[in-house]
């Protein structure tokens, strides 16, 4: 697989960015943000992978018998998941209120702030 896994992370990030730049719907934009975040999971977990390794859980594994993948990046990815989910919730709450007041969720029709 080589560097393809790492390149895939960049591809996911830029695809999400393309979606964000051209978005005509805020819900879609927030979805794109979540896609951008998945690129970080992909990179972190790929960085922590080790050939032939298993999960770093020793409840049914004798220490030293098998290599395990890097537990630190897994913990980082877990933190990242929670951060992403909560930020998404906040942004969606803002979108709900915006839709009530503005009757649209198209970012291109929001013109209240400029100059």
């Amino acid at each position: 697989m080589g560097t393809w896994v790492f390149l895939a992370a960049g591809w996911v990030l830029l695809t999400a960015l393309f979606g964000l730049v051209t978005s005509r719907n805020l819900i879609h934009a927030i979805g794109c943000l979540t896609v951008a975040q998945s690129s970080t999971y992909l990179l972190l977990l790929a960085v922590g992978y080790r050939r032939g390794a298993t999960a770093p859980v020793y409840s049914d594994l004798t220490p030293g018998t098998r290599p395990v993948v890097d537990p630190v990046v897994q913990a980082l990815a877990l933190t990242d998941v929670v951060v992403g989910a909560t930020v998404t919730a906040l942004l969606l709450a803002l979108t709900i209120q915006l839709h009530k007041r503005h009757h649209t969720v198209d970012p291109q029709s929001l013109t209240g702030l400029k100059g």
Partner: protein
Amino acid sequence: MSTRARLVMFLLAAAVVAAFFSAACAHLPPFATPDHPYGERAVAAALERRTANVVSAVNFDIRAFDTLGEESILFGTVLGATLLLRRARDERHRRPVAERVMPTTRLFATLLLPVTLAVGVYTVAHGQLSPGGGFQGGVVLATALHLAYVAADYRALQKVRPLVVLDVADSLAAASYTLVGLAGLITGGAFLQNVLPLGTFNTITSGGTVPVLNATVGVEVACGLICLLAHFLDQAVEFTGPDQYEKTGDR
């Protein structure tokens, strides 16, 4: 900027970023490298602390301060949603109405409810032993409660969901993570020091403060998520906007 100008500018810049990203990837250590210095140190430290699930050991012991920030983000999000999804001045409250549910759906959800609750509690309690932990188990627990919404209707959900209690429990759980940290500072000399007895490896009480912190996070995630979803559901079910009066006739 016109749509076209924006797109051209973006595509040019993105091409440059893509080129640099690829060049950087070429210098990364090869995929599946055996060299993970921090990871190996973390595994050794977790085994020394008798925590079988090393990911939990990293999250709740070695790098527990990260998790303090993380659960505070969750707590802040619940507070933020409380603020943002409050009833606006020109909105009215509407009583949710009873809805019909297909008998099969009702049966399925009723059967699933106890199973989901049990899985949630198990996942939180065994966080230091098997994959899972407070965050994952908390989400399962919050989902379990919402099966009541699927099985019956919103009014049934309101009955099984004492929001005030859950909201207070969410805040108290958030505070108790910090308090466990301060207890470590007072008795052990360092904030979030693992001061409890470590127990026997691979039992439910092993790992010192890891299961305690796991449980506080489990409670916080379950309560916080239910409150968060409650604010969102209120928007859909209970609030009528300023221009919806005519449709519902509910002034």
